[in-house]
């Protein structure tokens, strides 16, 4: 988030009389209470290095696990859209995160998995350059990780 953005967000908060933006939305019935509880993890999203991001997520030193499956192509024709799918075969998976080591901020997205939802998420991320991509899973309170290198190529004229 840039300084401008932070200021904009702060201004918006001020205008709402300190009630907090999400609280206000919840009060107005625009979002569900569950949603308001899930405050955006600013510290984790603004962390720069992989180690700092893991720290901000409370993941410490996660264990590499074959039960965390990161499915993505080895080569992306364009770094603006890189499809990534994460599936956890670990029991009681509660949280899934996707991290791109060489991006300005490593954390791309994270998900909370309620009971009854499969720990299997597909989304698309931006990659500034060829990088290791990590799938982080919190299962029964412990963190597990899997890694894959994705190459970003320069294309031709583009169809």
């Amino acid at each position: 988030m840039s300084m401008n953005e932070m200021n904009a967000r702060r201004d918006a908060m001020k205008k709402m009389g300190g009630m907090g933006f999400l609280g206000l939305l919840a009060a107005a019935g625009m979002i569900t209470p569950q949603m308001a509880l899930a405050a955006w993890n600013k510290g984790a999203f603004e962390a720069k290095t992989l180690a700092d991001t893991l720290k901000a997520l409370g993941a410490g030193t996660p264990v590499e696990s074959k039960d965390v499956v990161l499915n993505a192509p080895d080569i992306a024709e364009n770094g603006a859209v890189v499809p990534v799918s994460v599936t956890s075969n670990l029991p009681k998976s509660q949280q899934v995160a996707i991290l791109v080591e060489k991006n300005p901020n490593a954390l791309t997205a994270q998900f909370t998995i309620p009971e009854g939802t499969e720990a299997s998420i597909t989304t698309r991320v931006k990659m500034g350059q060829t990088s290791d991509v990590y799938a982080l899973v919190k299962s029964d309170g412990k963190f597990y990780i899997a890694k894959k290198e994705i190459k970003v190529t320069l294309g031709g004229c583009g169809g």
Partner: protein
Amino acid sequence: MADPMKIRAANKDGVTEVKILMSHEMETGQRKDASGAIVPAHFITEVTASWNGKVVLQGEFGPAVSKNPYLSFKFKGGAKGEKVTVSWVDNKGDKRSDEGVIA
């Protein structure tokens, strides 16, 4: 106001697969416009999907999620004709909520 989402949900053998496309710029805050000025960051921060009043997925995005974000996931339950509701909020306070019917 933000453009509508496209939500598809299909139940197979008791599991509902949800596929969502959200219409959003997802500006990183690092791109410059034609005049050289930084385009301010503008991205979805939170996404929530619910079915029958129960939250089935909660996500937090950073600006490195691709433009017009795509998200798919599966949950147990869901019957044909029931609705899946998806809502998002972005860093400027814009928001959008749409429904998809389970096929």
